[in-house]
């Protein structure tokens, strides 16, 4: 409390000084505010698999709020973010987010050649497989580094970056140190290639964490290297990245550092595509071997994504239907040598997308056009030879396809029938191996059908109706769902939705997850109010997921910028 007041007084004082400067129009000031509040309620009707009702947590009223302020003066800028989690953070967020405090701050100098930051900063090298610091409030991720960063652009076609710092965890930072460098060179500019865009990148990242383990068989410092290339030529493009992480102790269970299984890691990413007007095809292949990277070894696999250093997205389609987001793939970069049926050294797989537009006026295209999107992905455990008993060990094969973990085949057809009416139809088929993805039991096969239509009444009034159904052969089995969204005008919208797990074998767990809510928008402000039930499970953004428990209640969210 004391801290907060001090912070507020200091900020207000500095603000008033700044405000005077603003009148001279020398200092530029902007910022944003976001608040997500939830009032959890008891709900006797919402039963879990053991027939327990849903009970509110000890502090039923919780709120996550973020205030960001940014000041700019000539080539200098400074920013500060305050965060408050009262009383406590929303359910199942990292418990280290507790109370209110200053979360991040920075001071930055930038001109066209050089950019220097001291304080907290966000950065990504290449695709992020070795290093990415970012913020995702919905997932409770903010793994900014606190330290320094220098970006230097000696010419138009070379960018050099170097970073050094401790990673943020809750309102604190880790003891371990992360440092690294990255360079990107645009070759096509150097060699004045007219029809090609070619760029190269090189990355180095290191994590230095002193270990408590007596006689460790690994070094405190783990180094990682990557090289990448990007080529565009007319309608074709290609990119590839190879990452290598030096030997380090393997962590199979969060918190347990295995001093007898010391392994390097690597990742290969390959992407190819071709696109022209009305047609596009894109294919990605990825092989990950022992590739998760945390700023502290023992943090590996923690459920809050705390101390995560790299970004390993799931290369599958991000569906916008509710039922297609029940069985969501999470990438499996880690080693597991648990039993004969549960061995992996990572993952291997691919994804393909095809987009095609049937022209307006053609037979299938109709008067207003028809669009088709096909997507397929398949991910297997990375296989090889595994030695289960002491000492545990493994060797991998390059194309080591172990047990299948996930597959998704889907098609989406969008058709505009008239200037007022548009519809989308989707079919999705998924395979989900609970053992490998959740360390639970069983395999689920699903078939999902979804259809939606949007109809415009007037220029700003419209309605969207969506229906979906999932057939699943295991776990919670069949579901049906519907959503109706009504846009009253450009400022107000309302919606009502229900997901019904009517196929659940446990009769008491055949729950309805109903929700009703509304949103108001004006300029930079959006306010949304919702009442209903939250399905327990994974909330995922970009393939990084957070588990949320079942809950029932009222939520209010507000965001604005100024």
């Amino acid at each position, binding site marked *: 409390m004391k801290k907060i007041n001090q912070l507020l007084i200091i900020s207000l004082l500095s603000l008033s000084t700044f405000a005077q400067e603003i009148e001279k129009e020398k200092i*530029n000031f902007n910022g*944003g505010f976001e608040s997500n509040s939830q009032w959890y309620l008891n709900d006797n009707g919402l039963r879990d698999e053991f027939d327990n009702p849903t009970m509110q947590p000890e502090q039923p009223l919780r709120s996550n709020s973020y205030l960001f302020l940014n000041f700019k003066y000539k*080539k200098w800028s400074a920013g500060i973010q305050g965060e408050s989690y009262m009383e406590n953070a929303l359910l199942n967020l990292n418990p280290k987010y507790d109370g209110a405090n200053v979360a991040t701050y920075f001071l930055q100098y930038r001109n066209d050649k050089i950019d220097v930051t001291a304080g907290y900063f*966000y950065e990504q090298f290449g695709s992020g497989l070795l290093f990415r610091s970012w913020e995702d409030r919905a997932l409770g991720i903010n793994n900014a580094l606190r330290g320094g960063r220098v970006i230097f652009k000696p010419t138009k076609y070379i960018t050099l970056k170097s970073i050094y710092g401790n990673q943020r965890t809750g309102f604190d930072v880790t003891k371990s140190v992360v440092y690294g460098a990255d360079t990107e060179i645009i070759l096509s500019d150097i060699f004045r290639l007219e029809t090609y*865009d070619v760029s190269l990148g090189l990355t180095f990242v290191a994590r230095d964490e002193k270990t408590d383990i007596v006689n460790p068989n690994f070094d405190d410092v783990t180094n990682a290297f990557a090289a990448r290339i990007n080529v565009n030529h007319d309608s074709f493009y290609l990119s590839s990245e190879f990452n290598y992480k030096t030997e380090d102790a393997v962590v199979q269970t969060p918190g347990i550092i295995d001093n007898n299984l010391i392994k390097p890691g690597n990742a290969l990413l390959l992407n190819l595509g071709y696109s022209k007007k009305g*047609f596009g095809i894109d294919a990605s292949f990825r092989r990950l071997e022992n590739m998760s990277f945390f700023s502290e070894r023992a943090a590996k696999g923690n459920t809050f994504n705390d101390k995560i250093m790299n970004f390993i997205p799931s290369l599958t389609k991000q569906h916008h239907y509710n039922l297609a987001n029940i069985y969501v793939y999470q990438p499996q970069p880690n080693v597991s040598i648990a039993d004969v049926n549960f061995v992996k050294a990572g993952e291997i797989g691919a994804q393909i997308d095809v987009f095609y537009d049937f022209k307006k006026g053609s037979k299938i295209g109709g008067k207003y056009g028809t669009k088709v999107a096909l997507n397929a992905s398949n991910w297997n455990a990375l296989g090889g030879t595994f030695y289960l008993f002491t000492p545990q060990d493994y060797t991998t094969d390059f194309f080591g396809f172990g047990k299948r973990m996930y597959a998704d085949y889907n098609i989406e057809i969008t058709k505009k029938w008239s200037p007022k009416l548009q519809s989308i139809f989707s079919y999705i088929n998924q395979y989900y191996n609970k053992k490998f993805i959740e360390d639970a039991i069983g395999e689920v096969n699903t078939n999902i059908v979804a259809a939606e239509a949007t109809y415009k009444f007037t220029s700003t009034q419209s309605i969207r109706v969506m229906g979906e159904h999932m057939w699943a052969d295991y776990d919670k089995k069949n579901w049906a769902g519907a959503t109706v969204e009504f846009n009253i005008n450009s400022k107000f919208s309302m919606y009502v939705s229900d997901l019904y797990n009517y196929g659940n074998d446990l009769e008491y767990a055949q729950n309805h997850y109903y929700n009703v809510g509304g949103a108001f928008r004006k300029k930079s402000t959006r306010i949304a109010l919702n009442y209903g039930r939250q399905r327990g499970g994974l909330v995922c953004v970009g393939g990084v997921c957070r588990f949320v428990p079942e809950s029932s209640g009222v939520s209010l969210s507000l965001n604005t910028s*100024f």
Partner: protein
Amino acid sequence: MKKLTLLFFFTATTIFAQNSLPDLSLTTIDGKTVILKNEFNEKDKLYIFSFWATWCAPCINELDELNDIQEDWKKEANFEIIAVSTDDSRTQKRVKPLINGKGWSYRILLDTNQDFKRALSIVNIPYTIVVKNNKIVHIQNGYVPGSEIELFEKLKTL
């Protein structure tokens, strides 16, 4: 008490807000680096930055609509639309086939680690800002069918 002070803090700050285009450099879809304030600085021209992602259906609806009508509007106002993709490395590879497939004529910026989005405190997309002489003169948070008509009416007054 804490909430009250926060609220006070918040209102106190809004009074002095005056927003300019953040000082950032971003990558274009062709891999070129552009410095925002140098690239979008034609005097009195309106630059409309529309923040979107390949997985965001309302964003794509908005950009589809704008693409269809922008030529008509250009007869009445001097503006350019820039589509800022906030796709992270999960979906960034879909940007190119998607925009080519749709035949959008926008300049595309890649905000892969969301520096631009964060600098403007954007929480949800779609989110659209209008910039004139390096100052943000209008913001539209969200999109519903028809928002583009209001946007155009607004453009004529800026």
